[in-house]
């Protein structure tokens, strides 16, 4: 009896010791299909790492950004793994808020444009979970009806011509749908990328705002002409979701937006035009830069975490080739997170399952965050400027351009206001001496 008691006590103690040593890491993530899928597949990780438990905080992008920024800036330590984008990584890494990642699976397999966007001074501070660019999605049937053929790499002139030919107001078809809702990640993501193809830039080498240049004028005039003549009504309040709904309901001839939309518009459960969608590279103006952006939702480890090793292990698992194969096995190749690894685009099974795969890769490869536009710039980022002040400025400029689209002010007035407000902010922040 005594021996039994001793054995029981000993086994309980061992069990409690084990429990005490099980580390719990908290992962903050955005709510999108790929991330939700990862949450469902984590048994694979916890089986291989029984000493690590996972806690999930899944939130809408803007809420998550606010929470995570507050936590990391105050060293709150609530999270051990963060989901952040290519905008945050260079800024936070320079501030010393992120740990360098040294356990990432096969780093050389990462797509160079994405890897560059997540590195500072050659060190990787976040591992990409999925990458995206932007491209033209168009209705093949309407294009055919208009007697036109979409080239693989169209120009803005062709887009204008096609938009005019495809517009059919009587049947509620708009030639083109583009973002108009104000926000640094909304209309300004599109317009900044578009301005790159017109040779415009946010700042010159001395951080002087450039909204008073002919390149920006040409960008905004062209955008307003397209939207006012061939775009949907009330476009100044349309973001990604609104345009997605319009395209899926057959109300758009063309839509230039995130490559991630390809899987939605070709899904016959949701889209009425699923079998009539073609893809092309974002347009250019013959200046050597296309109007596509680059974004990667990535996993990073904050410097304030007490569980760095467990967190790095998780990041390594979630962004590994093994994880890609796991998703393919459980959910099919079409559901694999795209745009991060070169090897995925050499996989025949993936290329067969995802008809938009090649265009996604080509679009990502077209973007260069270090040299986003024609002229030299002092910043990193294709559709954003990776400085902390950009979020506020980007949204303020976006409001001016959205007002111009709504007809509340002219393009010239919007550009003058943008120039004035960015000059004021950059002077205040000390960039302009």
């Amino acid at each position: 009896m005594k021996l039994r008691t001793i054995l029981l006590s000993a086994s309980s103690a061992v069990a409690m010791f084990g429990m005490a040593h099980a580390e719990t890491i908290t992962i903050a993530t955005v709510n999108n299909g790929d991330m939700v899928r990862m949450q469902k597949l984590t048994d694979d990780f916890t089986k291989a790492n029984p000493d690590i438990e996972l806690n999930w905080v899944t939130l809408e992008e803007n809420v998550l950004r606010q929470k995570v920024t507050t936590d990391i800036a105050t060293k709150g330590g609530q999270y051990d793994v963060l989901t952040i984008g290519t905008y945050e990584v260079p800024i936070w890494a320079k501030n010393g808020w992120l740990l360098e990642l040294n356990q990432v699976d096969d780093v050389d397999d990462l797509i160079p444009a994405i890897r560059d966007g997540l590195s500072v001074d050659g060190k990787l501070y976040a591992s990409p979970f999925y990458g995206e660019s932007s491209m033209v999605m168009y209705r093949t049937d309407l294009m055919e009806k208009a007697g036109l053929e979409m080239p693989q790499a169209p120009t803005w002139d062709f887009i204008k011509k096609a938009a005019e030919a495809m517009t059919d107001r009587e049947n509620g078809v708009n030639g083109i749908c583009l973002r108009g809702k104000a926000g640094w990640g909304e209309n300004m993501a599109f317009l900044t990328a578009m301005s790159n193809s017109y040779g415009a830039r946010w700042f010159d080498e001395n951080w002087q705002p450039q909204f008073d240049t002919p390149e920006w004028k040409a960008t905004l005039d062209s955008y307003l002409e397209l939207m006012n003549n061939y775009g949907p009504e009330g476009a100044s309040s349309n973001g990604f979701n609104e345009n997605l709904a319009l395209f899926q309901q057959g109300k758009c001839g063309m839509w230039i937006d995130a490559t991630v939309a390809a899987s939605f518009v070709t899904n016959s459960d949701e889209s009425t035009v699923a079998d009539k969608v073609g893809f092309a590279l974002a347009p250019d103006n013959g200046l050597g830069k296309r109007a596509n952006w680059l974004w990667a939702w990535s996993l990073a480890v904050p410097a304030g975490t007490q569980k760095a090793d467990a967190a790095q292990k998780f990041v390594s698992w979630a962004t590994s080739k093994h994880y890609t194969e796991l998703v393919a096995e459980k959910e099919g190749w079409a559901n694999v997170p795209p745009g991060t690894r070169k090897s995925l685009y050499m996989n025949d099974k993936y290329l067969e399952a995802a008809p938009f795969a090649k265009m996604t890769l080509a679009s990502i490869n077209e973007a260069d965050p270090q040299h986003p536009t024609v002229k030299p710039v002092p910043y990193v980022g294709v559709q954003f400027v990776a400085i902390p002040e950009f979020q506020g400025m980007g949204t303020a400029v976006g409001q001016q351009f959205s007002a111009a689209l709504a007809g509340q002010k002219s393009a010239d007035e919007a550009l003058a206001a943008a120039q004035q407000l960015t000059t004021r902010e950059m002077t205040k922040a000390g960039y302009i001496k």
Partner: protein
Amino acid sequence: MARNVTTAKRVGWSIAAWFVALLIFFPILWTVITSFKSEGAAIAFPPVFFDFDWTLSSYVEVQERSDYLLHVWNSAVISLGSTFIALLISIPAAWSMAFNPTKRTKDILMWMLSTKMLPAVAVLVPFYLAYKNLGLLDTKLGLIIILTMMNLPILIWMLFSYFKEIPGEILEACRMDGATLGQEIVYILTPMAVPGIASTLLLNIIMAWNEAFWTLNISASQAAPLSAFIASYSSPEGLFWAKLSAASTLAIAPILIMGWFSQKQLVRGLTFGAVK
């Protein structure tokens, strides 16, 4: 003839009242209907009201993805806890200002209200740092404290106006009979102000239940209430309206049911003292 006019008027007013009620209730009804649609039917244009394939798939997915009961438990503890503490503080405070006013009472009331004019985000970082040092981040206690502080001015104002309606002579009479201060508040004042206190209590529970700034920013996973539960289904890249509607329906269901059963007290409390 006169009787007919009265009936017609009554019917007219009833129709108008029903129309307004339906207008106000329509967004909730639409959310509930959408929660039973597929994602494709949810974004269909023109929208379909009842003629679609009803499905529970969004509810099933929400159940699989989130720990709904944990969020409900957190919401209940936080809203009831903060309401209880706030009432403990606000009843004596309102009593004092209603029955023993000084020349500064009005200034104090205004000052309390002025704290509501401060945008919450302005004090987020100081609170976050203080909570981090006190170990209150992502705890229910931390959220109870903050929601108590946040709702206290409104509670005191509401109770103050209810107490002002009670004739001071009644309290004087009970003092003449030898009641202590505690007895006066517990046995005389509180029973007389029950409708007012009940409606204040209910409104505070609703405000705490719906609060979505502090609950989202101070909580992470352990103390996250239903506001965080809903926020996890909203997405700027992807139309998941059916799932978002299912999550919203689940989140508002408890408070809607509570409001339904207590509407008598709520209305009585809100109109308390309106007619003498």
